[in-house]
């Protein structure tokens, strides 16, 4: 595919996403049109952890890791800030502000802004902590777990294998954890070591699941639509490829199979 075609497709893709976002919001605002977001086990624990934090007067630890605005992970960093905003807002009834840690200094102003907007008992500037990248960050956070005694760790951001040190530390201290990383190595470590884990695009729908606001739910719906279309496209391509290789499998049969799969998928989705 040449560069011009790629650019045209990119523009069309972005425009289609804009249209989908507005359409989903329109339907979300209609009476009775609010769509329930699919349940994610890890996110359902956050309410309990927040209550525990308030009652025990122990802070929540929210880790952004290496995500940063200004780089290619800017949207991910903004999604994480939105998730943390919703969590801090829930914890606002308590007396102790959550601790927000990052390994990229450019996230400090965003973190402080998030705390300022969601936490109404002081500026919370000293609750945003920066340590240098990767291992230094992980070891500093692991070391501070014994002193700060967080009620729970919610690690959503850019983490690599160094996440293992933090999750191991949390486990040793008996502190529950939820982890998700926008890097593959960090995601594998999160799956193995965290008490609860989010995977892939679940990071981007997390704020909608935690909040009561409709816009997060509609963004989740847009993601579901795109994901469904990609799965559908991949399935069709796979079946067409099979139909070329197997003499008995014609493209008509492949199309019929795909139609059955789509109907089955739609029925299962509606039931869930």
């Amino acid at each position, binding site marked *: 595919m040449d560069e011009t075609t790629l650019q045209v497709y990119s523009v069309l893709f972005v425009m289609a996403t*804009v249209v989908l976002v507005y359409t989903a919001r329109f339907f979300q605002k209609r009476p009775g049109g609010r769509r329930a977001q699919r349940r994610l086990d890890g996110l359902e624990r956050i309410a309990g952890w927040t209550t525990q934090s308030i009652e025990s007067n122990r802070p929540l630890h929210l880790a952004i890791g290496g995500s940063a605005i200004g780089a290619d992970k800017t*949207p991910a960093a903004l999604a994480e800030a939105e998730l943390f905003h919703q969590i801090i807002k829930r914890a606002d009834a308590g007396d102790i502000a959550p601790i927000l840690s990052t390994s990229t200094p450019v996230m400090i102003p965003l973190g402080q802004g998030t705390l300022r907007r969601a936490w109404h008992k002081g500026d919370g500037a000293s609750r945003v902590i920066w340590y240098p990248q990767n291992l230094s960050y992980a070891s500093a956070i692991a070391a501070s777990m014994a002193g700060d005694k967080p009620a729970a760790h919610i690690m959503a951001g850019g983490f690599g294998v160094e996440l293992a040190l933090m999750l191991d530390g949390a486990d040793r201290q008996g502190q529950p954890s939820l982890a998700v990383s926008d890097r593959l190595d960090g995601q594998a470590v999160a799956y193995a070591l965290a008490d609860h884990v989010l995977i892939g695009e679940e990071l*981007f729908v997390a704020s909608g699941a935690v909040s009561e606001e409709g816009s997060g739910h509609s963004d989740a719906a847009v993601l579901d639509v795109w994901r469904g279309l990609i799965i559908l496209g991949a399935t069709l391509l796979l079946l067409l490829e099979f139909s070329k290789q197997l003499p008995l499998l014609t493209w008509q049969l492949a199309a019929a199979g795909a139609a059955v799969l789509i109907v089955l998928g739609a029925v299962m989705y509606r039931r869930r």
Partner: protein
Amino acid sequence: MGRAGISAFVAFAVGLTTLLSLLLGDNPALFGGGPGSEELARRLALPGDVLLRLVVIVLALSIVIGITNLLYVHVGRVARGKLYSAVLLASFAFTIYWYVSRRGDSSLLEAVQVPIESTLASLLFFSLIYGGARVMRRRADIWGLLFVAVVIVVLLGSLPLAELAPLKAWSDWLMAVPVSAGARALLLGIALGTVVAGVRALLGQDRSYRG
């Protein structure tokens, strides 16, 4: 228009300008490739270039914010009697003194920081192995079992032993087909999420801009 409205408008204007500049700039073929198309493409690319350079300058300055934050947080902690924070501040001051008095000598970094980080990296290995072993305690289901089985096959397959040659083939297949497919699916999900979150920011819907 309130402060939030102005912030959202500025975010929208800058975001849209950069997006259009990156998508349409520097490609004369998009405008038919005629006589004026090269100049038009170059002009379209200019605003995006300028804004991205500004971002680079701001990012370079952010390290100052980081150091200020580090000192601010740990001075407060020392006041509350935290020993580790006092050690951190003392190390910080000593490192700067060493670097200035020895005219740029970075031996302290090489003699202390590098060995400590290497030690941590080796500890990380044990944490990962321990984590792998703990998966079955946490997730005693088919997926946990599959995870551990794949880890074992890949680890054994990477050993240079002739007796384990069949496992090497399995390991290669696992890495090339299911692991690669899973990784692509994960990255695809993250990419879709990035686009939706980017559109949200572009439309000024993001809370960071709304004040």
